[in-house]
């Protein structure tokens, strides 16, 4: 990874982007691409579009959501403690003892001391209504001078570089997908393409694939390739036999099932084999739970592919990915786009 890409990745991961507040991270993405793609635009929902177009017949959407899960202030009590509710699928068992930050304030997540908890409760995970955020406020008024109802918080955790080009951070889901998207678009911007490409960094995936619904309608693509993290089960208690055996550094995870167009899947497998890129396949027997699921149903239907980045510890403060997988995703997506023909259909034979 070159220096500018690395600096950009660090910036992306340091920018809070809880669902509904993606403007700051969209600004980062726009800055990364504005020299290569002149006509970047944002819609009222917050989705951002990067067109590489020459008005050719076939329109291909490449997408990744930029929002992350987070917390929202529900109420402030008399002593200035903040009661919180989750934005998206937060695992509340990982919250106690974490540092958090909002736009103007830092805090910690407090919980009752183990010693004070009744025996029966001490072995249970804390539910979010039993937790609070302590910003060190003297009282309610003091807290209200720094934060209001409905303001958001994210975990305040750093990016950690581990061995073997593996990194750990919060919200790699799915800022790593957005990173793969921007780096792919940079490579494609220098090429002559046979198809129209519209990159989209979508919003609000974590609260119900919402940005994909509106941006899918606006883009009206023939084909959509969506990037998101997918489970790596190669860790203790991963239960790979049950959930699918997928591993970190094992290459992009291609979904197979009703949510994915089988011709597209075959194309990705062929391109990967030719370019010597390792891939893994994951069985997704029902509707796809990523933005791909919403994109498939846009307007009259879209041929969709779900490309996954292997991710350990999803929805915790220490999500982990391998940068080799990231590079393989960029390469596979770039190669597929370059080889994508100007016409032909994706009707399932």
């Amino acid at each position, binding site marked *: 990874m070159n220096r500018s890409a690395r600096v950009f990745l660090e910036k992306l991961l340091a920018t809070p982007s809880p669902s509904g507040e993606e403007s700051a991270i969209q600004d980062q993405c726009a800055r990364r691409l504005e020299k290569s793609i002149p006509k970047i635009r944002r819609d*009222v929902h917050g*989705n951002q579009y990067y067109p590489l177009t020459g008005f050719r017949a076939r329109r291909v959407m490449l997408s990744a959501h930029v929002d992350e899960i987070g917390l929202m202030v*529900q109420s402030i009590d008399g002593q200035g403690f903040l009661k919180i509710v989750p934005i998206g699928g937060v695992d509340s068992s990982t919250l106690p003892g974490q540092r958090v930050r909002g736009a103007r304030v830092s805090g910690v997540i407090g919980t009752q001391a183990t010693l004070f908890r009744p025996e029966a409760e001490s072995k249970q995970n804390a539910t979010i209504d039993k937790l609070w955020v302590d910003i060190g406020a003297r009282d309610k008024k003091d807290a209200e001078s720094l934060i209001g109802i409905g303001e958001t918080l994210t975990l305040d955790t750093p990016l950690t570089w581990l061995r073997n080009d593996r990194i750990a951070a919060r919200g790699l889901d799915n800022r790593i997908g957005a990173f793969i998207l921007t780096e792919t678009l940079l490579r494609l911007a220098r090429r002559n393409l046979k198809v129209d490409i519209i990159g989209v960094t979508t919003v609000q995936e974590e*609260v119900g694939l*919402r940005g994909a619904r509106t*941006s899918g309608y606006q883009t009206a693509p023939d084909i959509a390739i969506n990037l998101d993290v997918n489970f790596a089960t190669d860790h203790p208690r991963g239960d790979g036999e049950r959930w699918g055996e997928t591993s970190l550094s094992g290459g992009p995870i291609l979904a197979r099932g009703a949510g994915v167009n089988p011709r597209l899947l075959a194309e990705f497998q062929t391109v990967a084999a030719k370019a010597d890129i390792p891939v893994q396949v994951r069985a997704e027997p029902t509707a796809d739970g990523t933005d791909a699921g919403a994109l498939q149903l846009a307007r009259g239907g879209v041929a969709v592919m779900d490309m996954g980045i292997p991710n350990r510890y999803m929805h915790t403060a220490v999500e982990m990915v391998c940068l080799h997988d990231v590079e393989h995703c960029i390469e596979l997506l770039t190669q597929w786009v370059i080889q994508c023909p100007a016409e032909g259909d994706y009707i399932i034979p």
Partner: protein
Amino acid sequence: MRKESLDFLKKLLNTASPSGFEEKIQRVCKSYMEPYADEIYKDVHGNQYHVINKKADLRIMLAGHVDEIGLMVNTIDANGFLGFVPIGGVDSAVLGGQRVTVHGASGPVPGVIGRKAIHLTPQEDRNKALEVHEMWIDIGAKNKKDAEKVVAIADPVTIAVGYQELRNDMVVARALDDRVGAFVIMEAVRLLAKKKINVAVYCVTTVQEEIGLRGATTSAYGCNPHAGLAVDVAWATDHPRGEGERYGETAIGSGPIISRGPNINPMVHKGILDAAKKSNVPIQHFAMPRGTGTDANAMQLSRGGVATGLIGIPNRYMHTPVELVSLKDVENASKLIATWISGLKANTSFIPR
């Protein structure tokens, strides 16, 4: 509140409008709005549009649903008792012992909801709420044939309670949810009707919200707005066991409740906050970290996306026959919306920055 307005509100609240049966209440809306709207029309789903300043390029949709929760007759037994199923999120714990109106083809039929006497209920079941299928409607029929003279399968049913005033500007009625929201948006249009504004306003009294935001889905597609506000009731937690710390601290009479979160466009949110300052309307805040259960949810996801806001009328005892609101909050909400719309320019952008 102005007498004509209050009369209109009472009329709305005394008109039955269970989801799917909104024709009558739409007629009430139409006759009140005729002097104020430039154009009034209905779509096949039953939504009604009251439009002002249609020629403007920027389109704003206001949504207030006119449907209410209710019951529906699904069986008539040999003895003439009516079995029923809920329309929308009915709290079955409040049904026993209520008077009801069955809306039959030849006119309203009075009845009561019957249940097994508490004395005949085993001790261990006495504290449990009955489920809908354990109750029935008794219209005093002699037998099935007698009942069928006035009632048919799928006739809608509403609880037979009306409007009542309490102390301090507070009123109770069944289904203030959301006839009060529909009232608020129509009053906002009345306030705007004489003024020069830069946007087209589509004030839509939507249908079928209580069974899945259905009318907002079709009407938002139909009028294709750039931005929209939904007005619906919102929980006031200022009562015993309200648990405000957990669910958000909101109170009756303290002003419209402004939601914030992913379902809310930040530019619309800011616009509403500015309008509150300008019009001197007190407001309260509510944290909503996901798609809301209101028309604002369907509106935001319509076509390529709509910049959406949500204004709540503080409401105690939602989905019971004694929903309670403050008329002060209701008037303030209309004023707030009219102020926001008056301040919009032809080139106002709602793209989040």
